[in-house]
């Protein structure tokens, strides 16, 4: 019996479904004013505040690199956890949750496409913030190591992807979880070192930050832009990837819970 044929068909149909979800999510973001707030306005405002503060008299010139990239990282994170993380919640708001569960395509495949669409817009956040740094403050990245920078950005994207995939069922199961993480948004900026190094924090805070996957990827990203300081890229990428996969393992149980609420008890649309 040749299983290769049917298997290939199944994979192709799943890829097609994920791609359709990706296209739809991109199209929805093009017309959503919230999307522009998250990837354009919000990071730009934070970048400007950051650049002003980091260029105050007495601030080291090497600090400006945090202003150049910090706003973009903030925007990227915001899109990842708000837009991509609300992948299931949005369907509930739009009244399409039941239809999605009724389709033969697994939920995670649809979310995969949606999250990728969100992350694509998140990457755009670096464009306005870098432009503001260059044209407004004449700030550039001093010693960019392009390959390590690109790999670090890829690893960071992996961590944001895993977090978004994990948060999607979390936000759907417990609505208050979004409020809490939304309220703690600036706390994430602190712990992940988006606009200043984690090393300036209290030791206990650095310990907490160590459990967050983006912290290590952000560390690698900044290390790829400056010549001085430690450059343990392989270790940082490995820790980020390991933690991200651990989040995915946790997400597996959350998706099982979502399935149970949606299909067995039928209460997902009610919680």
């Amino acid at each position, binding site marked *: 019996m040749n299983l290769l044929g049917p298997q290939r068909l199944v994979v192709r149909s799943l890829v097609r479904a994920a791609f359709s979800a990706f296209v739809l999510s991109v199209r929805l973001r093009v017309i959503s*004013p919230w999307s522009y*707030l998250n990837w354009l306005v919000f990071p730009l*405002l934070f970048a400007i505040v950051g650049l002003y*503060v980091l260029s105050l008299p*007495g601030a080291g010139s090497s*600090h400006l690199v945090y202003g150049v990239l910090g706003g973009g990282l903030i925007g990227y994170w915001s899109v990842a956890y708000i837009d991509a993380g609300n992948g299931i919640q949005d369907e509930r708001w739009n009244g399409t949750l039941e239809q999605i569960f009724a389709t033969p395509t697994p939920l995670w495949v649809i979310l995969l496409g949606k999250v990728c669409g969100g992350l694509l817009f998140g990457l755009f956040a670096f464009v306005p913030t870098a432009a503001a740094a260059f044209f407004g403050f004449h700030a550039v990245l001093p010693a960019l190591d392009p390959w390590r920078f690109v790999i670090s950005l890829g690893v960071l994207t992996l961590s944001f992807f895993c977090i978004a995939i994990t948060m999607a069922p979390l936000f759907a199961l417990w609505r*208050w979880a979004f409020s*809490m993480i939304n309220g*703690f948004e600036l706390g994430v900026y602190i712990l992940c070192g988006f606009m*200043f190094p984690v090393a300036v924090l209290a030791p206990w805070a650095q310990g907490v930050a160590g459990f967050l996957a983006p912290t290590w990827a952000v560390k690698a990203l900044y290390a790829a832009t400056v010549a001085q300081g430690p450059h343990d890229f392989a270790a940082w990428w490995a820790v980020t990837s390991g933690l991200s996969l651990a989040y995915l393992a946790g997400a597996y149980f959350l998706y099982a819970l979502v399935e149970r609420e949606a299909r067995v008890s039928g209460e997902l649309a009610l919680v």
Partner: protein
Amino acid sequence: MKHLGLEAGVFARSLYLQYVALFQWATVRGYIAYKVLLPVTQILFFVELGVYATGRQNALYFALGNALQLTANAGIFGVIATVANERQYGTLPILLASPANRLVTFMSRAVVNVIDGIATVVIGLAIVVVLFGLDLRQANLPLLGLCVVIISVTTAGLGLMFGSIGLVMRDAIIVANIVYYLLLIICGINFPVSRLPGALQVLAYSLPLTRGVQAARDAAAGATLGHVSGLLAGELLVGAAWALGGYFLFRGLENWSRRGGLQEAY
């Protein structure tokens, strides 16, 4: 006298209903998320950023500025969300069809948020005292309290202006986000206004917070009312101008939205 009593009744009922129906943080979890976690992390973030940039000796500058800017959390987000929520819950056409005095209804929408703004700053200042050792022994505390009250009122005035836009705009809360974070740049919260380009400095002094925060910084350093009276008078004037502008915009947009049937346009 009877007319005044009636208006006071409308004001009191509207104030109560605004709290029970439209105060979106009136749950324990909501309040913790947006009124405790957000202020704490905002202060911590900007203090750590400032300390990283300029050294630990300037921590209080950033801590105090951001603690005072928290009034905008209630004054801008709260007030704009009030009108936006009326629209979202489908009660805006009913409100606009009522014969109640618009000014009274309009002002009552802001009062709960002013009180909430004061509470938020108290939380913020308590955090600054505990975490950053803000020494208030030399401070003119009654004057600092007066500054906090005035800032809360004036930011609510700005909120009323932008809240009016909610009459004709579906996602007015986006405007709240932009205005809230714009105030962080323009109003001398994290760096002096003098560092901004000339045009932005003019804008800074035409917004609430700028003079109020300056006065509060002086009060925390022990200044007397005489020293900061000019700043506080200017702050009140700016706040009143924005509130009045907001009222007229509200009336104008009310007519426009009624003509175009935009109150329920989602």
